[in-house]
């Protein structure tokens, strides 16, 4: 026993080294959403088009909620994916125009195309805070009852769509059957 205690530092160290090694493959920057399995926060704002909008206007089916801004370059990168989705018409996409200016948002949609059923205008970011947004772009998957089921942060390209969203949507559809 007397000699064994000298091995304690080495043993501790090996345990720590293993932890550090595991830690290397974690991503400490992606925040998990607190709203998973909770209802969409209540809101009463207007769309970019100028019409009033609230929770009752949200689609009665599974839909995507995409947080974007005209200033956001990655949003431009993921834009083609949403255009394709809106053309196919299977899943509606609702936009949240986050901390932007109405004019600029209009211009952006005109220049690049508008894949959104409508875009909720969140000028001061208050709605974004209720959603737990911490940086555009973010996309939420919301089910037919208005419950948030999944969030993806940063660019939603075709790979992400296939690997993350399609399985999630299939699961949701299976549930409601």
């Amino acid at each position: 026993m007397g000699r064994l205690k000298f091995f304690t530092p080495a043993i501790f160290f090996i345990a720590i080294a293993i932890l550090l090694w595991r830690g290397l493959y974690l991503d400490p920057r992606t925040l998990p959403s607190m709203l998973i399995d909770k209802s969409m926060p209540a809101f009463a704002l207007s769309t970019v088009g100028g019409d009033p909008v609230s929770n009752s206007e949200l689609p009665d089916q599974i839909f995507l909620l995409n947080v974007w801004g005209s200033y956001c370059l990655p949003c431009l990168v993921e834009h083609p994916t949403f255009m394709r989705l809106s053309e196919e018409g299977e899943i509606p996409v609702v936009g949240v125009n986050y901390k932007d200016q109405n004019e600029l948002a209009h211009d952006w949609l005109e220049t690049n195309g508008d894949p959104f059923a409508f875009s909720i205008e969140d000028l001061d970011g208050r709605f974004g805070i209720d959603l737990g947004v911490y940086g555009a772009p973010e996309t939420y998957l919301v089910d037919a009852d208005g419950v948030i089921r999944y969030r993806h942060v940063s660019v939603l390209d075709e790979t992400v769509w296939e690997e993350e969203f399609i399985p999630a949507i299939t699961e949701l559809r299976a549930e409601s059957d």
Partner: protein
Amino acid sequence: MAAKFKTCFLVTLLFLLLLIPTKNIFAQVDTFEFNNEVQQQRFRTLSDELRCPMCQNTNLSGSTGGVAEDLRREIHRMIIEGMSDREIEQFMFERYGDFIFYRPRLRAETILLWFGPLIFLLIGGTVGWSIFRRAKEVSETEIALDDNQKAQLDELVGE
């Protein structure tokens, strides 16, 4: 010796440099009004102890723009509306989770974190005590020294 002079030089230079007015920062400036000093202090404490969700490890006080700015605005609004600190923290937790607190909540999972230092202190105390115990045994054992060894001993131990 060279290392020593380097250090001395650096140290002197440093003292002189202490008084150079200098520069570059990234702090923000809000001009929120509060009804009294207590509210002002609560705002400052909350902004200091909440983390900016999108920054590289800074608190709300020290972050420019973006979500941090919005959250400070919300804290101000909530203080003025009369919400308690607990309610404000609950608001933040519902939206951003544990991540936003720089002071981790005490739960089953964080017990090791909060009681760890105490455990370390107990371990340290035990190790220290066992070192002392061994030393006590040694000092109680008579070690006979001859003159030569006594002289060597004095050399080693003397100031």
